[in-house]
């Protein structure tokens, strides 16, 4: 099947409106017509774009022949994997396997208040005007070759809409589980918060076991996109957990748009995948907009991580703070590049950036490169980066208290992540994030 045929299949299966079908075809043409990124261009200095091409795999289609029907009981069992008391309290849950119709639930209180939580395919049918207004606006086709690819072929997807003034105090959790062997998947999340709204959302990508690979993790190429529009005085906490299987290559693009007095806390958790590239950007496009970006990355084996973040200050009196913590073991690799751009009109803004890398083994490598474009001098801006092993004096201190070497290293790593995770105010969210980190720490 050609790409254009795949696009038509998706459009027909979803009974999608013309504008969307056109947009997808246009995206496919753009994908095909755009050359591979130049490795000299700075965003691709650390990763090979060929790794993300899909010509040797089958795109996931919602045609009912490739996907496995979702089982409600299985979905509930998945939600139970976070079973501690602190993490039970959810406003909504959406579980999606492959591109089939997902299982989702939203507390009545929020449904009655006008909150919408469903898959994007359903949203296109039921709320076409909201979707048309926002889809592809933050991450348009022109964003990049691979963003265009997602636009052409996304299926399923997550849609969260919070109307003006509605503040959801507990998290909404979306879990995307996908991947049959030699498949390409295209998750897409669209979050819209109207004026004065607030939401906490956890968006997790994972890979389900595939019977055909005899227990080995399926070979999957994932192209994921999240776009979020945060209205005036609205507040979004968005957590993206990348927990793909050990043979997944993942390319992820995220963009958050903040209006006046809006606030976003964006948390990126990088745990899974074999070869990962992530571009995350928050644009402060209104006075007093506030953004925190928090990164937690824990790599092992021969995992490759290439993370790029951008804080773009367009308006004045805006504030951004980035804290990105990386722990690597075995022969894992991480490259982090972080841009702070302060536009000429963004006077009296503040921007902070810190990236720390802890290397647990001799073979792992990390790079950290801050990038500053400051076009207005009336701002405060700092950045800092460190790369190195665990401090031996810290270890000795803990050993003298009776902790074993293993326990000492573990508590130092936990503490390293705690300095970022403790910034999350919401208790349920905080507990869930620890679940992820502890899950990976246990394997050490």
């Amino acid at each position, binding site marked *: 099947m050609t790409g254009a045929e795949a696009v038509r299949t998706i459009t027909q299966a979803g009974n999608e409106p013309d504008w969307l079908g056109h947009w997808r075809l246009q995206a496919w043409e753009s994908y095909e017509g755009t050359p591979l990124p130049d490795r000299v261009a700075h965003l691709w200095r650390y990763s090979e774009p060929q790794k993300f091409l899909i010509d040797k795999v089958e795109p996931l289609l919602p045609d009912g022949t490739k996907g496995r029907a979702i089982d409600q009981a299985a979905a509930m069992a998945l939600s139970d994997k976070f079973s501690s008391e602190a993490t039970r309290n959810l406003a909504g849950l959406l579980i999606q396997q492959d591109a089939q119709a997902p299982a989702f639930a939203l507390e009545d209180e929020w449904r009655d208040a006008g909150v919408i939580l469903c898959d994007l395919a359903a949203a296109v049918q039921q709320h076409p005007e909201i979707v048309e207004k926002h889809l592809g606006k933050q991450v348009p086709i022109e964003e990049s070759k691979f963003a265009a690819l997602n636009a052409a072929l996304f299926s399923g997807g997550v849609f969260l809409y919070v109307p003006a003034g509605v503040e959801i105090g507990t998290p909404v959790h979306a879990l995307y589980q996908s991947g049959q062997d030699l498949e390409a998947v295209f998750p897409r999340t669209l979050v819209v918060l109207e004026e004065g709204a607030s939401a906490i959302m956890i968006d997790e990508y994972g890979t389900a076991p595939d019977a055909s690979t005899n227990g080995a993790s399926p070979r999957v190429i994932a192209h994921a996109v999240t776009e979020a529009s945060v209205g005036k005085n609205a507040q979004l906490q968005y957590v993206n957990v990348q927990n793909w299987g050990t043979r997944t290559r993942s390319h992820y693009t995220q963009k958050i748009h903040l209006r006046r007095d809006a606030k976003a806390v964006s948390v990126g958790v990088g745990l899974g995948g074999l070869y990962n590239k992530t571009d995350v950007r928050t644009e402060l496009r209104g006075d007093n907009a506030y953004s925190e970006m928090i990164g937690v990355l824990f790599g092992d084996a021969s995992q490759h991580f290439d993370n790029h973040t951008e804080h773009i200050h367009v308006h004045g009196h805006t504030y951004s703070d980035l804290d990105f913590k990386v722990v690597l073991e075995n022969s894992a690799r991480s490259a982090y590049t972080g841009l702070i751009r302060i536009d000429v009109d963004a006077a009296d803004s503040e921007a902070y950036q810190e990236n720390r890398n802890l290397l647990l083994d001799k073979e792992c490598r990390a790079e950290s490169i801050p990038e500053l474009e400051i076009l207005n001098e009336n701002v405060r801006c700092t950045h800092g980066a460190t790369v190195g092993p665990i401090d031996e004096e810290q270890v000795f201190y803990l050993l*003298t208290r*009776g*902790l*074993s070497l293993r326990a000492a290293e573990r*508590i130092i790593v936990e*503490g390293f*992540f705690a300095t970022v995770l403790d910034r999350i105010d919401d208790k349920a969210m905080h507990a869930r994030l620890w679940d992820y980190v502890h899950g990976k720490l246990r394997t050490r």
Partner: protein
Amino acid sequence: MSDNGHPLFEVENLKVAIDGNEILRGVDLTINEGEIHAIMGRNGSGKSTMANVVMGHPAYEVLEGSVKYKGKDVLELDTDERARLGMFLAFQYPMSIPGVTVAKFLHSALKARAEGGDVPVREFRVNLNKAMDLLGVDSSFASRYVNDGFSGGEKKRLEILQMFVLEPTLCILDETDSGLDIDALKTVAEGVNALRSEQRAMLLITHYQRVLNYVEPDVVHVMMDGKIVRTGGIDLAEALEEKGYEWIEQELFHDTDDATSAEAAQA
């Protein structure tokens, strides 16, 4: 000097080097159960080396000699094994562990000592609060990150707090008194006195006589150039306070002089 206790800690002819430089040049020291000893000496005399090597700091190389605790040769043991046997070092410069709260840190240390056994959180919290009350430490201490952003006095208080909670049998305090104002010094001293018991022994390593106004040692040693050159009672500390280290240096010089002339006489 109380001499009714059994030897708890015995150092014999300990010679230690760092980066090939010999720092300890034959230290002998025995501390009995229930005793408090002080080692005084100038900076660079080898006091801190002594504290660190006894706990197994990897930077130091033991050239010769033995260190026994409860009759066991501890130089054969890993640092954490020494700690679990009841040896404790209060650091001169305690390390900060960002992201790890004081409560979590102490709970982990207790769990390590319980050898796989459980340390109920509730019971632990009660004990921790009791210890913090005794030391006059604010209850917010427990949820702060270990030594992260602590003042000098807070760091030393935390070292003492750890002694209360972990209840070691041998406490080595490496210049715990240095850099403290008088109130912090008193708190530290009160803590040490409160921990004094018939089973426990303590070794105060200090630069100044000041702390000995508040904690009365059974034995005072003077260390110079990697050796213990004088041993006595509290009067030795007082003499040091009055006359300074030069006085001992001069005496030692004369000793050497005498020895040289004795040798010359024999020849």
